[in-house]
């Protein structure tokens, strides 16, 4: 009997562990290390309407227990993601979470509508941390009204459930979560990266060509746990938790905070086997904690 299987809107998962969007490409590289069917789901790299090269390099910088990235949404574009990446992934029996991004509302709508029809896409992860060009660069993810509006429009066109991926760079994460829940989100994914910067002492310039970038890794875990703890007590939709996860213990901490599934990002770069390792170690940890099924842990710190 499985102790890890999880049923979430659109996602019927053999375990609640998925690689985080942008940290696993479209799966091909990690498929060289292990069978992708080991995973509960796969969150693929953000797809945009057009092919994007992204930002100039350097695109990553190291920080204490974390890293900054400013990839700039490089991706082959919607057509190619549909025709190549998703078709390639069909060989694996694993639900795909399609992360979608854009700078205009219309872009999001187009990607959502078309990608949600792909055979193996079981959910959309709406990445609202991108700058909204129409609103003068304010990210969709920091204004509850803008986020709510976008969620509604994406929900209307999507054939699969929509998880809204929240940015932590806000004063009030609960307000954001409630806004997108009311707009019809089926679930939340949190957290995206914190905005950060490193400066090269000799060049006297930011290390990242883009200036600032997104901070990920264990450094941000306490912020993720705090936000999930706050939000999960207020919303009634499930949360896919992420931010610094690299062990089975971390997964349990996220579940106790209120997550119902988790995504592992940066840790894949350090250990390509981190996801299967976590999946293999979870049952033993559940034993230690006297837990039969992992669902028993959801929100355990406040329930």
């Amino acid at each position: 009997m499985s102790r890890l299987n999880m049923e979430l809107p659109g996602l019927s998962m053999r375990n609640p562990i998925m690689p985080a969007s942008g940290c696993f490409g479209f799966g091909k590289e990690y498929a060289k290390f292990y069978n992708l069917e080991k995973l509960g789901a796969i969150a693929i790299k953000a797809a945009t309407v057009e092919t994007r090269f992204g930002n100039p390099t350097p695109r990553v910088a190291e920080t204490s227990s974390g890293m900054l990235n400013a990839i700039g949404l490089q991706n082959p574009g919607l057509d190619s993601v549909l025709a190549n990446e998703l078709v390639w992934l069909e060989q694996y029996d694993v639900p795909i979470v399609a992360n979608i991004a854009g700078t205009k509302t219309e872009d999001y709508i187009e990607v959502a509508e078309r990608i949600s029809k792909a055979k193996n896409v079981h959910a959309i992860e709406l990445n609202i941390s991108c700058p909204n060009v129409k609103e003068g660069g304010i990210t969709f993810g920091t204004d509850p009204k803008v986020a709510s509006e976008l969620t509604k429009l994406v929900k209307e066109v999507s054939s699969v459930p929509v998880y809204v991926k929240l940015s932590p760079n806000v004063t009030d994460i609960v307000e954001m979560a409630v806004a997108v829940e009311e707009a019809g989100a089926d679930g939340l994914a949190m957290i995206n990266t914190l905005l950060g910067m490193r400066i090269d002492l000799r060049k006297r310039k930011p290390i990242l060509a883009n200036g600032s970038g997104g901070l990920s890794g264990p450094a941000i875990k306490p912020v993720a746990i705090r936000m999930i703890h706050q939000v999960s007590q207020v919303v009634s939709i499930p949360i896919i938790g992420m931010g610094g996860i690299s062990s089975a213990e971390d997964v349990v901490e996220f579940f106790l905070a209120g997550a119902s599934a988790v995504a592992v990002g940066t840790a894949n770069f350090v250990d390509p086997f981190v996801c299967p390792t976590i999946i293999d170690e979870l049952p033993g940890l559940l034993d230690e904690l006297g837990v039969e099924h992992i669902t028993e842990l959801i929100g355990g710190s406040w329930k």
Partner: protein
Amino acid sequence: MIVENMEIVSQKNIASQVYELVLQGQELVSLAIQGQFLHVKVSEGTDPMLRRPISIASIDKDKNQLTVIYRAGGRGTNMLANKQVGDQVSVLGPLGNGFPVEATNAGEKAVLIGGGIGVPPLYELSMQLVAKGITVIHVLGFASSKDVFYEEKFTELGETYVATMDGTKGYHGTVIDVIKDKGISFDTIYSCGPTPMLKAIETTFPEERGFLSLEERMGCGIGACFACVCHVQNDPTGIAYKKICTDGPVFAIGEVEL
């Protein structure tokens, strides 16, 4: 491409801040070729966070050992330099495409141009070229005499010129100066070193058959994170790209934007 804990068999300081490290492997060594690199975790925890890319300097398949040569400077390489014989490091590799030995025919002449800490991968390459009956000429540039390493080792394999920027050892000037002044002729160029040097090579020998090994800050090292991309030359769309970690680190002259 595997992950393996490799044991440190020897660690030697061979030039100013430069260390030669020999790693005992199991399966990984048998997969490695010249010009590939390793992604090395220098500590167990999250400090430092990321692996460090380091080129393979030589491969001993009999002993199942790899040698790498690195400059200790930042946080991670300094920690690596403090490791002792017997310590283990987690290695992800071998990564990247490597230098194409097959691009030069037996009997032809190859010039191997190295700059500073870009010299190491040329060593295994040189051994492979020589084994195939190719004549090798080494032109190795360093900042100063204190930075020079492996001069004798390269000399054993073929003609070797050392140049230093400050003239404290060998030829006073750049590697390009050496090639021009000595009138070195060749069929193929293989090079690894700082980007300005690679650019100078490309500008000076745009029509030659040649291969350049590039560097970029990396996340995954295996092609998944898109940290290490570069533009493709003569791409009007500007969206074509190559990943240095998997499509490279070695590219043909004229292939990618430096």
